[in-house]
């Protein structure tokens, strides 16, 4: 069983170099090899989940003897469950890619990066210490940047790739500093050792607080929480399967996983938990508000991811269930978001457009895609008995017992969630088609993953309830169900009125009302975070950079003079000290 825990991330990583090699011989062979590799990974994932009994097992190989850093796999309920989930979802997405990427250039690059991406994410989840986690964390970051910029002929794609790369680095620095502080204080970064040291001498309250804040910043960068979220909406420039992978299976989950994994550290200090909650709630509301106005189908989904991840952070911060609620919602979000992206990708391949205003009436011509998207949106809004209902209402129920404000905010955000979900659904699949030609349904290889996910979204909660890896014991109290059903009903009501029965009145209201116009404009710009960062760069970093190179005038005389001056200055300082 323990071998499976090593193999699950080794298999995709080892198969990376074979992709270009096989690609030289046969294009088809290469694509199916990638599918096979990810299928094998998924199989190992399920085997791991099936053979896992209980408790926590570690297995390690010495890697850096000096710092006693081993390569380590940690097998416990959370890691096994997430590994199985990630490998399953990745398999579906790779399969879908075969259809989606048909006829694209640079597919060897695509499949090698995807496999490396998945392998690194699985390595991150299975890692038994923080150094190893950081190692894979960075690889995940690099792969995502390259994948986002996959269509490098498009300037927006290049910009988005660089942006993802740079913005997530902010979080990475914080995580790196946290790892170093832990290592410097405890001489180990093994999770169990960290948790047992919490509170004792070299790892006292202040250090824990500092490390916790740094870890949180790291998680915010990867999981696109406000204010480090700016890369995620732009990351939509990548191929849609990549978006699905980033949003559902890999990248953004890394941050949440970090916080879940380090929960004993976070729960040590109530300040930390409050911070996690605040970050989560802010992102939840921000993401949902931006998703309501966005006109790009994929951006709507991106903002919704920010919002859903915010819910996970908030549920960890509420802190009653040791992060189990967040784990559940992570899987639930992964499933319905992957479904939404795959369906959206199918729409985009068929119509060539991502703008919801240009689409419409696809319900009849793309039946399977429509079913997929419908189920995704129903699950996202939390309509029972789909998986989203269980995960979200469980979060609200647990929050009600400890943090009523958070619970009410999460329940209220359901209204916004329902609005943006159904707005997208109505605009794309209902109404009159605005397209010149009738779009055709996508190929079977794309429909199979979509339908698999429809089934997963519908019955996934049963599987999650009966698995033994992480005992969820979901309890949802009736008050919560009432609240969320009311939220969904009012959301659907608003959408129906605004976008279906009284479209004209809505448009005239939006056109006349100055505050609404302004609000919409700001939300479309993402509340000006991008502008702010641009300002920081042009006003602080660039002038500093220019000043730094002034010293090199290129004149030998000036250089010599400056050098003499520095020697004299050092002598002077030394002399001052002596006297």
């Amino acid at each position, binding site marked *: 069983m323990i071998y499976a825990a090593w193999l699950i991330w080794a298999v995709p990583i080892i198969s990376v170099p074979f992709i270009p090699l096989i690609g030289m011989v046969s294009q088809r062979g290469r694509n199916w090899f990638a599918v096979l590799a990810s299928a094998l990974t998924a199989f190992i994932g399920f085997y791991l989940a099936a053979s896992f009994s209980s408790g926590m097992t570690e297995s390690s190989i010495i890697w850096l003897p000096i710092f006693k850093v081993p390569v380590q796999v940690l097998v416990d309920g959370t890691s096994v469950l997430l590994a199985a989930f990630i490998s399953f979802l990745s398999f579906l997405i790779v399969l879908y890619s075969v259809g989606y990427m048909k006829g694209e250039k640079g597919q060897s690059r695509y499949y090698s990066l995807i496999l490396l991406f998945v392998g690194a994410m699985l390595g991150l989840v299975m890692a038994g210490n923080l150094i190893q986690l950081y190692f894979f964390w960075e690889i995940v970051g*690099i792969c995502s940047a390259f994948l986002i910029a996959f269509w490098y002929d498009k300037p927006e794609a290049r910009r988005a790739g660089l942006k993802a790369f740079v913005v997530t680095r902010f979080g990475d620095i914080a995580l790196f500093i946290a790892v*170093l502080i832990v290592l410097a204080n405890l001489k180990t970064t093994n999770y169990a050792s960290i948790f047992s040291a919490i509170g004792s001498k070299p790892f006292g309250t202040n250090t824990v607080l500092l490390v916790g804040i740094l870890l949180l910043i790291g998680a915010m960068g990867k999981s696109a929480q406000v204010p480090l979220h700016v890369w995620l909406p732009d990351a939509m420039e990548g191929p849609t399967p990549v978006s699905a992978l980033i949003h559902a299976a890999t990248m953004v989950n890394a941050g949440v996983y970090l916080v879940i994994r380090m929960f004993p550290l976070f729960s040590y200090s109530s300040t930390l938990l409050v911070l996690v909650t605040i970050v989560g709630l802010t992102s939840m509301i921000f993401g949902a508000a931006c998703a309501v106005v966005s006109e790009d189908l994929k951006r709507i989904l991106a903002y919704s991811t920010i919002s859903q991840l915010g819910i996970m952070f908030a549920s960890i911060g509420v802190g009653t269930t040791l992060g189990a609620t967040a784990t559940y919602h992570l899987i639930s979000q992964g499933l319905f978001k992957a479904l939404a992206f795959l369906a959206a990708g199918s729409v985009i391949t068929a119509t060539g457009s991502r703008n919801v205003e240009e689409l419409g009436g696809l319900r009849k011509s793309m039946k399977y895609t429509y079913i997929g998207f419908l189920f995704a949106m129903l699950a996202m809004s939390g309509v029972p008995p789909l998986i989203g209902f269980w995960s979200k209402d469980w979060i609200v129920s647990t929050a009600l017992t400890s943090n009523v404000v958070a619970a009410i905010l999460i329940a209220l955000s359901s209204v916004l969630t329902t609005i943006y979900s159904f707005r997208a659904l109505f605009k794309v699949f209902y109404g009159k088609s605005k397209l010149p030609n009738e779009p055709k349904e996508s190929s079977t290889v794309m429909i199979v993953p979509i339908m698999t996910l429809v089934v997963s979204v519908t019955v996934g909660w049963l599987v999650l309830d009966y698995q033994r890896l992480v005992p969820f014991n979901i309890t949802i109290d009736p008050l919560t169900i009432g609240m969320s059903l009311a939220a969904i009903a009012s959301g659907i009501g608003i959408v129906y009125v605004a976008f279906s029965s009284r479209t004209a009145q809505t448009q005239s209201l939006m056109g006349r009302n100055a505050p609404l116009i302004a609000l919409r404009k700001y939300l479309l710009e993402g509340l000006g975070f991008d502008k702010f960062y641009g300002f920081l760069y042009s006003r602080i970093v660039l002038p500093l950079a220019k000043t730094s190179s002034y010293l090199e005038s290129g004149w*030998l005389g000036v250089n010599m003079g400056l050098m003499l001056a520095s020697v004299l200055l050092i002598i002077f300082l030394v002399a001052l000290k002596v006297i």
Partner: protein
Amino acid sequence: MYISPDQFPLYLAGVLAGVALTIVLLSVTGKRSKYIAMGLSTAGFAFAITFIVLQALGYFGTVQNNPTSSSLFATDWVSYIFGVAVLLVALLVGLTAVDYFSDVIGTDVTTFYALLVFTTIGTLLLIFSANLLMMFVAWEMMSIPSYVLTGFKKKDPASNEAAVKYFVISAFSSAVLLYGISLIYLLTGNLSIYQIVRLMPNGMTVSGMTNFQPIGLLALTFFVAGFGIKLAAVPFHMWIPDAYQGAPTIVSALLSTATKGATFAPAIRVLFVMFSSSTFQPDWTLTFAVLSVLSMTLGNFAALTQKSVTRILAYSSIGQAGYILIGVAAGGQLGLTGSFFHILNYATMQSCAFLAAALIIKNVGSDNLDSFNGIGKRVAVAPMALTLSLLALGGFPPLSGFWSKFVLFLSAFQSTSNLSWLAIVAIINSFVSIAFYVRIVKHMYLDEGNSTTKLVETNGFKASLILASAIIVGTGIYPGPLIEFATEAARSFMSEISSTQLIERLAFILHSL
């Protein structure tokens, strides 16, 4: 076969000198001689590497000598790892020279190889030297051929200008260094680094001075300035961008790694042995922390706005010197391990970057960033190697630079002198540096170029770049052995001055009474 460790460097230098003289003789024989010169020098470097490795493994008897005797040389782990790094860089550069100069008018590549071997000999002796006079002679042996190498493109004004600038500044550094040495001699009447340390704190000087501190500090300042110029640490860095840009790019690879890296060996011997007494150490710990911050910040920020790839690499070299100095400032076994390890990695990363850039610059005829546009589609190995080495310089796992930076930053956190602020500044700097490293990658792979004609990659360049990339990736995936070597070097250093120091000092005092 037994070789006395005291004489080991002489054997090493002797073999290489034989190679160099053969190459000089070859240069009169005719046109084909450049290939023979390349073969000879490559074989010579490879032999020297093997020789050092065998010595380090104890095949020739004693592994390390006792430099506290009046030996001219310190044959220890520091010398071994620096020696191998320098020889490796020389080997990489040597592999590319024939191709690089193939269409430069007015150059004789055979002479280039002779000079390359000569400067390598000087560098090796500098690494091994345990005596200030030997150190100075080796310093000059290293520098003089490198001036000629810098100006090797005779018809190119930029190359000539770079050579003159390098020469003037380097002469200044030699002068300052020599002045420092003379002051030490004035104080102690001795030139052997490992003996001076025992004379220093007692104030027992030949000239009868009782307070050695002012002059000692002055000497220390001169050493810092002299080494600082070769190390390209701010504020002694102004010559670097011009010199590296003007010099033939493969020579920049040599200067920025072999020459610079090798300077760390005597610098660390002077600081951690000669000035290791508690009278001096607090002074230079802070000095080096400040130099480190200045170098990192200035190097990385100045690189942000540069338009030329060689200048970006030059500034990156200044920034990297800053990282290496963290270990010197943090001190202790971990700090030195970090410094040594980072120098090793830096040598392969930076030389790989310069060599890959050399191939591209030679082909497109300009080192402007815009002329690198779309290179990724025109040639395979060079942009890949450049990308790998740049990402490694930026400290990305799973590449070699990540681990050495990791050790360095950790050493600052664990340092007894409370240098956490230094580590945090360094990490932020490391983040800033990503911007310009990735910028080059972006130009190569993402931007659309004017031309799509394929470029020729000659075998020499390919071999060199693939070897360097393999080392970068290999070290990144399994850094264990190299860290072990670096630790071994640091340990041999620390024990020399900490545990046995007191006893030896006492013995010396008794003896001199």
